[in-house]
Structures are given as C-alpha cells and as structure tokens.
C-alpha cells in the first residue's frame, strides 16, 4: 500500500499542519511516511502545497508528479493540482469558497462545505480538520484516533484545550463525507 496525497490551499489555511497531522498519525501507526512541502518564494501569496506519502515500505520519492488524492482548499490549487491527480483518484475539496469543482470525469469529486461547517463550529481555523475528517473517511489511510493522538503529541500543552474542538471538526467532516 502506497498512498500519495497532495494538500493544497492558501498559505494561511493550515495546509502544512493538516498534512503534518496525517504524516504524524501514519508514523504512530507504524507506517512509513514522508511529508514534503512545496517550498520557496512561489508560496508567497500564491498556493501552498504539501505532499504526504504513506506506505508500508520506505518512501522512494518525496517529490511527486502525480497524486492518488488531492485535498484542495482554494481555487488556484484546484487549477494547479486537478490535472495532477491520477486517473481513478480522488479530489476532496472545500466547496463553500471554491465555486467550480473538478472538471475531469476520471477522478472522484468529494465537495465538502468545510468553511461553512467550520463557521458553524465557531472557528474557521478548523476548516482543515473538517477536510481531514473527510479524507480519513474516504481513504482510511489513517484513523481519527491516531490524529487525536498526534495532536496530543505535537500541540504544546497550553493548546491541548483545542483538541476537543478539533475532534468535533474531524468527526463532522468524516460524517459529511460518509454521505457522499
């Protein structure tokens, strides 16, 4: 099993953090994993992407040309990464702010109104978590439990009060996705 995922959105949308949660969770589950951001000045103002590979074996390449799954948080990222999803792959996307979903017929489109859901939960900051919940539901490459474990390990103690909210967001996303 090797799953190659791209997370992409604006710089401020926490893309790197969600991706890191995935990698960390996979590591906790004893899997091989590799997290690789797009880096450099092109990040600036534009899109910010991060690849996570999860596998049973050593990850051969951290830099990929094609992905199994895309988790897309804004329109420019959709434009950039839609063509790079493998045929038969999956695009999970934020559907409140992105008006146009994927145009390709050979990938599965999972629109999640994560922004709205997050607003409902009282904080747009957890938008990414909502999408992550959907990602887990669709791919099963990690579990919600290990994400929660990852949060406990990576968040500084003074931030642990945020974990319940994150958990709710995760579960909301999971739930929403299970209906698609």
């Amino acid at each position, binding site marked *: 099993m090797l799953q190659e995922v791209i997370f992409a959105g604006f*710089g401020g949308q926490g893309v790197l953090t969600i991706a890191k949660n995935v990698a960390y969770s996979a590591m906790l589950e004893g899997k091989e994993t590799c997290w690789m951001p797009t880096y450099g*000045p*092109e990040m*600036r*103002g*534009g899109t910010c992407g991060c690849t996570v590979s999860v596998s049973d074996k050593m990850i051969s390449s951290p830099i990929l040309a094609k992905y199994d799954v895309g988790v897309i948080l804004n329109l420019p990222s959709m434009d950039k990464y839609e063509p790079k999803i493998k045929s038969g792959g999956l695009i999970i996307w934020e559907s409140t702010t992105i008006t146009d979903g994927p145009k390709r017929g050979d990938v599965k489109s999972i629109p999640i109104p994560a922004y709205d859901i997050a607003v409902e939960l009282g904080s747009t900051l957890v938008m990414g978590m909502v999408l992550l919940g959907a990602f887990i539901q669709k791919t099963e490459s990690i579990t919600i439990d290990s994400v929660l474990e990852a949060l406990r390990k990576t968040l500084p103690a003074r931030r642990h009060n945020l974990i319940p909210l994150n958990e709710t967001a995760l579960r909301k996303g999971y739930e929403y996705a299970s209906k698609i």
Partner: protein
Amino acid sequence: MSKVIERDGVQYEVIWEKPKGLKEKQMHYCPGCAHSTLEKLIMEVIGEKGLTENTIGVSPVGCSVFAYDYMDIDMQQAAHGRAAAVATGISRVFPDKLVFTIQGDGDLAAIGTAETIHACNRGENIVIFFVNNAIYGMTGGQMAPTTLEGQITSSSPHGRDVKLAGHPIKISELVAQLPGTCFVTRVAVNTPQNVKKTKAAIEKAFNNALDKKGTSLVELVGNCPSGWKMTPVNSYIWWEKNMIPMYPLGVIKDVDNN
C-alpha cells in the same frame, strides 16, 4: 498633457493609470508589499522622462529578484549582494546610460556591504534603491542587519538580541559619509504623501545620474507583511510606529544643498 476620456458626455482626466512601463505579468509580491509600489513608481518616472531606451536596471537576490518580469526595460539579475558591482560593470561600459539597482537589506546591508560601500565610495554614477524592510523577505523572514532591536524573526525567535547580533545598521548614514555619494535620502510609501515624495526622490536620483553627479542612494523604508507575519494594514501601522522612528525619513545628504 494628461489623457482625457468621455463618460456620460462629460470629460474626465486620467489622474492615474498603470504605467505603460510595467509588463502585463502580475507581480508575485505579497499583498501590500512596498516592493510593488516602488517598482510602479520607478516605471512611472522612467515613462514620464522617456528613459526606457536609456536605462538598464539591476535586480538583486531578494524579493525583487523578479523585477525584470515586471519592469519593461533591459535588466540584469545580479548575484546576492553584488548588484552594485554589476551596476558598476554596466555603468563603466555605458557611462551615458541610467543604471540603477533595487536591493533589499539582506542583499545590500549584509552580504553586499563591501560592494555597496565601495560603489558609493568610488562614486559610481548609478542609483541604488535600497528597500529596507528589516527582514529577509524572500527566504522566509530571517533577521536582517536592519532588523529592529527585540524584533522577532524566524532567525531571531527570541527577538533580536543586540548583545549577540548587534544593533540595526544605518546604511544611509554610513554611505552619506562617503564623498562619492551625491544624494542619500530616506523615503517610505506608507501614505499618499510619502508616495509622492518617493516619486520625487526617484526623479531627483535619476536626474543626478543623467547629470553624472555620482551615486544616489534612495532608502525605501519598507514593509514585509509576510515576514513580519501581519496583515498588510497592520504592517502599515507597525511600519509607521516602529520602522520610521528608527529610520527617520528625509534627505540625509544632497550635494546640491551644501
């Protein structure tokens, strides 16, 4: 002189429009970044003075590295810190051309210190635009020689400790001491008035070069919303409150007024 259009049967003057000298490509600068404003103003002046054919620009390594993608003039991209040396090379073989550089504080005041000081000391007939945003914008917000005391950056996460890293360096005051400089001034683009003053400073600096008076250095006290980790609007507030008091605006040296 100014362009006029008609709308609803009434005549309107064009008060401001995108300078012709800017290429179509959108600037990659972050929202609200002073780099954009500076390049806009430079191209306004070049356009107004009809200098396109007479100008060669030098972009540095720093956020303005891509200036050549925006400014529709012949340009060279210089190695990090070496823009003044590259400009020297150009100016010496084309003594009648207008040669300018745009350089950040890392580029000009750290790695390029020697090239800056010596170009100024030789009085190279060039114009140096020094964008001092107190940070290394391009590489992700590390401390620059001009970073303020206590300022938190990605390489001074505990705040700039002047005991270990020294005080912010005031380049304009240093180069003003060198006989080779004819004009050293500090400007900002944080208000419409200051934008106008900046444009005037650009004009003056270009005139100096056309008149072969020596080196002009225009320090733009700038902002870096991304590096400072602020919204553009907040960066303007911080700019006025912290940057300008440390780097006071105004003419530091002008041989015409001596």
